[in-house]
């Protein structure tokens, strides 16, 4: 991925992220604002509910008082006070009383709770009243909420007041109830977006308009509120339309710890959801447009920003490929311009440094060459000088022995001249390393053949034997190489290893197939090399041995370099040395 693309991606992501964050923040703030509004609505509705309950309480108390003062009730009380009352004629007395007082429930009760007459359920005469009226309720001057069973196994929650009607010491009771129903819920008025529901049972849920569709959706919330008394709000989705959702806040109606039902304050989420959706879509549209605009502007801006970087990159690539004369244009005075100027200065300094280094190395090489030449040539020249002086002294002092001396000296001279020629030949060979002729070479086979040449020398008499270990890969070791040159490099490494182990040891030759080539390892168990020696090992004419030209490893490095490979040495004092040659599987183009 280019820097320019990265810039575009980063700027687009940043823009989209900013829009998303803004949208999210606005949504959260909106939701919180709605929550506050809903809380205020709920609080207002709950306050209204309390007020309406108070009103209903006073109303029911008044109805009970008026009903108990009715003449017919007194007559009933008189009849009930008799020793053997016949109350059957009064079984329907409660109904007109209830109608007169507009009461939903009215029971005329004996002191033990037996129903004399029930307005809403006439058939319950002679049964016990089961309105959840406790004994203390019969003496309660104030109204209270309770649960009133109605036919068909249903029940209502009602505000109930009880009043006694006494004849002498005998009493009957008038229990009057006004149920909390749709009318009651409607009487609370309406707060926009809010409604009140009354949950009586899983099948009986009312709001101000009557029975609620899908009452089962409230079952879990209401049951939990009934059982635990907790007021945990929940979101109810009434249909597949998600806007048909409400936040429902349960208010358990209890009587001395017994749950009677649940009032539910429901706040519509439609408005909130629509606004949130609008915000999200606005965010998506703004974000999309922003990203598109950002891409266009970013494309233009990054092109301007990355142009000098691209030039700089091109310059770096040119320098890396060897063109040290590469320069980049300086088009601005900012950091990029400063970087371009620095690059240009760096390349100039690199060229100067290279020239100086080349010059210094050239001088050093010449000096080293001169030193080696002097050293190499000095050895054969000294016997030559002695031999010539011996010949001269023999000619002057012992002419009769001159011929014999001449013969011996001549052979000595020829031998030393031969040495000189050998030395010169080696230098000549190094200077004339031929270009490798590549062919497919199985490196393992080549290593095995090469090692075989040295078998006799490793165990020759007069030297401590060296053990040869071959660890050669059987597959994947064929690479393009010049077998002659590569064999020569191997031979040099083997000779080098043998020289490093005058006291014997183990010579290990290993080949391994690599992912993209072959590795050849030649290791010994000799004295090893110091770090400095390792660093200078491949320098021509450098040697750690008392004999040798210092060209062996230089030749190895030259061969490896011509094969586009890499050579390295791993060694430490007294730990032997290991040379690794990595050859590529393909020829470099």
């Amino acid at each position, binding site marked *: 991925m280019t820097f320019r693309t990265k810039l575009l991606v980063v700027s687009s992501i940043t823009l989209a992220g900013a829009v998303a964050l803004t949208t999210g923040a606005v949504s959260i703030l909106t939701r919180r604002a709605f929550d506050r509004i809903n809380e205020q609505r709920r609080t207002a509705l709950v306050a209204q509910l309390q007020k309406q309950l108070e009103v209903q309480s006073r109303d029911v108390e008044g109805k009970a008082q008026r009903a108990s003062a009715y003449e017919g009730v007194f007559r009933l009380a008189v009849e009930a006070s008799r020793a053997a009352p016949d109350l*059957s*004629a009064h*079984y*329907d007395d409660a109904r007109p009383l209830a109608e007169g007082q507009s009461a939903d429930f009215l029971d005329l009760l004996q002191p033990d709770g037996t129903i004399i007459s029930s307005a809403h*359920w*006439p*058939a*319950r*005469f*002679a*049964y016990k009243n089961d309105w959840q009226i406790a004994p203390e309720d019969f003496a309660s001057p104030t109204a209270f909420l309770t649960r009133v069973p109605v*036919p*068909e*196994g249903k029940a209502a929650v009602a505000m109930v007041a009880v009043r006694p009607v006494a004849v002498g010491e005998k009493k009957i009771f008038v229990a009057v109830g006004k149920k909390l129903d749709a009318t009651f819920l409607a009487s609370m008025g309406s707060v926009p977006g809010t409604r009140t529901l009354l949950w009586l049972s899983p099948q009986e849920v009312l709001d101000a308009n009557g029975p609620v569709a899908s009452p089962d959706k409230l079952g879990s919330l209401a049951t939990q509120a009934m059982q635990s008394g907790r007021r945990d709000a929940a979101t109810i989705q009434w249909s597949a339309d998600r806007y048909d959702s409400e936040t429902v806040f349960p208010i358990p109606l209890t009587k001395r710890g017994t749950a009677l039902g649940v009032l539910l304050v429901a706040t519509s989420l439609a408005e909130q959801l629509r606004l949130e959706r609008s915000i999200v879509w606005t965010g998506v549209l703004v974000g999309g447009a922003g990203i598109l605009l950002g891409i266009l502007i970013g494309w233009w801006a990054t092109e301007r920003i990355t142009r000098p970087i691209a030039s700089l990159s091109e310059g770096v690539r040119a320098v890396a490929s060897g063109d040290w004369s590469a320069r980049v244009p300086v088009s601005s005075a900012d950091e990029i311009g400063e970087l371009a100027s620095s690059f240009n200065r760096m390349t100039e300094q690199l060229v100067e440094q290279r020239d100086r280094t080349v010059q210094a190395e050239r001088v050093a090489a010449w000096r080293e060459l001169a030193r080696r030449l002097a050293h190499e040539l000095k050895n054969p020249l000294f016997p030559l000088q002695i031999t010539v002086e011996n010949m001269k002294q023999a000619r002057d002092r012992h002419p009769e022995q001159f011929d014999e001396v001449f013969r011996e000296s001549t052979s000595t001279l020829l031998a030393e001249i031969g040495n000189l020629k050998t030395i010169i030949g080696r230098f000549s060979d190094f200077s004339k390393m031929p270009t490798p002729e590549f062919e497919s070479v199985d490196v393992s086979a080549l290593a095995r053949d090469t090692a075989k040449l040295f078998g006799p020398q490793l165990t020759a008499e007069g030297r401590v034997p060296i053990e040869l270990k071959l660890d050669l890969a059987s597959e994947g070791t064929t690479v393009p190489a010049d077998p002659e040159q590569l064999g020569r490099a191997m031979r040099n490494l083997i000779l080098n290893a043998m020289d490093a182990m005058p006291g014997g040891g183990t010579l290990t030759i290993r080949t391994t197939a690599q992912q993209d080539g072959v590795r050849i390892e030649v290791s010994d168990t000799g004295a090893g090399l110091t770090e400095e020696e390792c660093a200078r090992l491949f320098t021509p004419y450098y040697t750690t041995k008392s004999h040798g030209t210092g060209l062996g490893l230089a030749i190895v490095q030259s061969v490896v370099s011509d094969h586009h490979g890499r050579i390295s040495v791993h060694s430490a004092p007294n730990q032997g040395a290991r040379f690794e040659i990595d050859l590529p599987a393909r020829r470099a183009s």
Partner: protein
Amino acid sequence: VLRIETKAAPRSLDPSEALGDPAMELERARLSGLLFETLVTLDARGEAKPCLATAWTHDLARRRWVFSARPNVVLHNGQPWQPTPRSLEFPDEQPIEEILRTLAKRQNAIVIHDGTTAVGTGPFKVLTWDAGKTAVLAAHDGYWGGRPYLDEARILMNRGYAEQATAFEAGLADAIEIPIHEVRRQAARGGRSTVSELNWILALIPEKTIAAPIREALSHAIDRTAVHSVLLQKQGEPTGALLPQMVSGYAFLFGADRNLAAARQAVGSTSPMTLSYDRRDPLLKPIAERILLNTAEAGISLRMATADAGADLRLAWLPISSRDPRTALEDLGNLLRLPLEGASLYGIERALIERRSLIPLFHLPVAHRLSSAVRGWTSREWPLADVWIQQ
């Protein structure tokens, strides 16, 4: 002029015309009895009395029964009733009691078809007839039993209790029907009301087959006495039989007492059942609700049906059409679409109850509220021939 209102709404007055609904035919009989007469009638004890026939004897060969037509009988159209002798002869193939019972049936009343009009011999004749709505009857001046006191009887049909009560309070009706439990209250208020003989059975009628133990459990679970004392205000009588004691003489053999323990023992485990009733009848709602309370105590799962159709049980009225028990049972058999089986009347009634899984609850009369001007209204239903208006 007597103004009467009634819940009944017969489509026809002609007793010879089959309505296809025995209950409706029985309702029609109250009206048609004023217009058309039979050769004989049955009295309160079920004994045959002369009506259009004054006597009946065997012929000389003792192969036929010959009925003597009442003389000087005038039809509503003014023509004399002159039956040919043959039409009043019946082969002696059945006991005379059986023949008389057959002849006393409403559908065997004497009807003369004069064109499209059915003409009878009864104390009243039809002045106006709007089927199911209004009937105006005029006194039949030539009636053999003497002209009725009333000149005219205007009958409004298909009127609910509330409508009738409103009309009565407004002075628009002289006689109306009232729910039976209102009788006591009317009396307490000083109003005039009458009750008829026990001619209705209130019963639980299974719409689907129910097992005998369930029927037993239901019958034992219901507290008839409490309902009779309170909801029926002591009118009628609790029963476990179809026919009242005064008609059959053996009604006490069918137990009617509540036995909750027996009900619980008999019920075992039952699947839930539903109960329906005619919601236009104000008497039935509290009784049905009481039955639900009673059965719940016995562990019977019975609840009110949301619709009349498809209910397991129906709380409904069955008519006692005659003082003659066999005739009454025959009519009940027709109504319930069951042939009579059994050697004795008791056996027939027991078979009807068990085969249809009926649960008789109460025998009840019909109650009427009368204005203070109405006189002569006896315990018979609609005794208009004997009624007069005191000015």
